[in-house]
C-alpha cells in the first residue's frame, strides 16, 4: 500500500467549507428556536450529519482518498446504525 499521496487541497476550498459549516451552525440554532415537535430533533440530526459529511470529506480528505477508506467509513457507520437500531428495538418494545 505504498503509493503517492492525494492531490493538495487548495486553501480556498477549505475556507469555503469552513464558511458553509458556520452557515449551517447558524441554521441549526435558528431552526432549534422554532417549535416543530419531533421534527426539531430530526432537523438537528440532519444538519449535524451534513456538517459531519463536510468535515469528513473535505477537512479529513476522504473525498480524495481511495475506495477502501470510504468503505471503512461505510462499515463503521453501518455498525453504529445497527448498534443504535437494535438498542431501540429492545427499548421501544419492552
Amino acid at each position: 500500500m505504498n503509493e503517492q499521496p492525494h492531490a493538495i487541497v487548495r486553501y480556498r476550498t477549505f475556507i469555503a467549507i469552513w464558511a458553509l459549516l458556520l452557515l449551517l451552525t447558524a441554521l441549526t440554532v435558528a431552526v432549534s428556536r422554532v417549535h416543530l415537535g419531533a421534527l426539531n430533533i430530526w432537523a438537528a440530526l440532519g444538519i449535524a450529519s451534513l456538517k459531519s459529511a463536510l468535515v469528513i470529506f473535505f477537512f479529513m480528505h476522504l473525498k480524495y482518498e481511495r475506495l477502501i477508506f470510504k468503505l471503512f467509513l461505510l462499515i463503521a457507520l453501518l455498525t453504529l446504525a445497527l448498534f443504535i437500531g437494535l438498542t431501540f428495538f429492545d427499548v421501544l418494545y419492552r
Partner: protein
Amino acid sequence: MNDRGHPAPHKDYAGAKLGMWLFLYTEVLLFGGLFVLYAVYLQRYPQEFAAAAGQLNLVLGAANTVILLTGSLLVALSVSAIRHGSARLAQGFLWGGVVSGVLFLFNKYVEWSTEISHGIYPGSPILEQRAQGEIVFFGLYYITLGLHGLHVLIGAVILAVAAVMTARGSIQQDEFVVLENSGLYWHLVDLVWIFIFPLYYLLL
C-alpha cells in the same frame, strides 16, 4: 519515494493513515455508546430533557462550536501548507489550532464552574431534588462533555507536538503523515462536538 532512484526506508503511507482511521472508528463507537444512552433517555423523558437543556449556556456552546470549526480549518490548512513546502506557515496554522483548543477549554471551565456553583453536578443535593429525567440529563452531560473535553486536551497536545516536529523538520514536505494523522484526530474531536452541540444545547 522509490521513483527518485535511491533506496528509501520502508514507509507505508496509506497503511499509516488507514490505521489512524481504524482507531478513529473505535472512538466513534465509544462516543456512539454515550449518544445511544442519550437517545434512549430522551425518548423516555422528553420534557425533562428539554427543561434541563434550556438551562445550559447557549452562547458559550455556540462560541465553542465556532472555535472548534475554526480550529479544524486551521489544521486542515496546515496539511496543505506543509505540502506546498511552507513549514513556517504550517507551524503557524498548527499553533492556531492549539489556541482554539485552549480557548475551548477555557470556555468549558467558565461554563462548568458556573453550573457547579449553582449546585448542578452529579450527586449534588440540589440536583438530587430535581426530576429523574433532569438528573439523567446532567449525568450524561458531564460524562459526555467531560470525555469530549479530555479529547480536546489530548488533541491540543498532539497538535503542539506536531508543530514542534514541523519546526525541527521531522515533519516536512514529503514526510507529513504524522501531521495528517494528528489532523484526523483533531477533526474527530470537532465531529463529536457537531453532534453534542444541537443535542445538548439546542434541545427544545
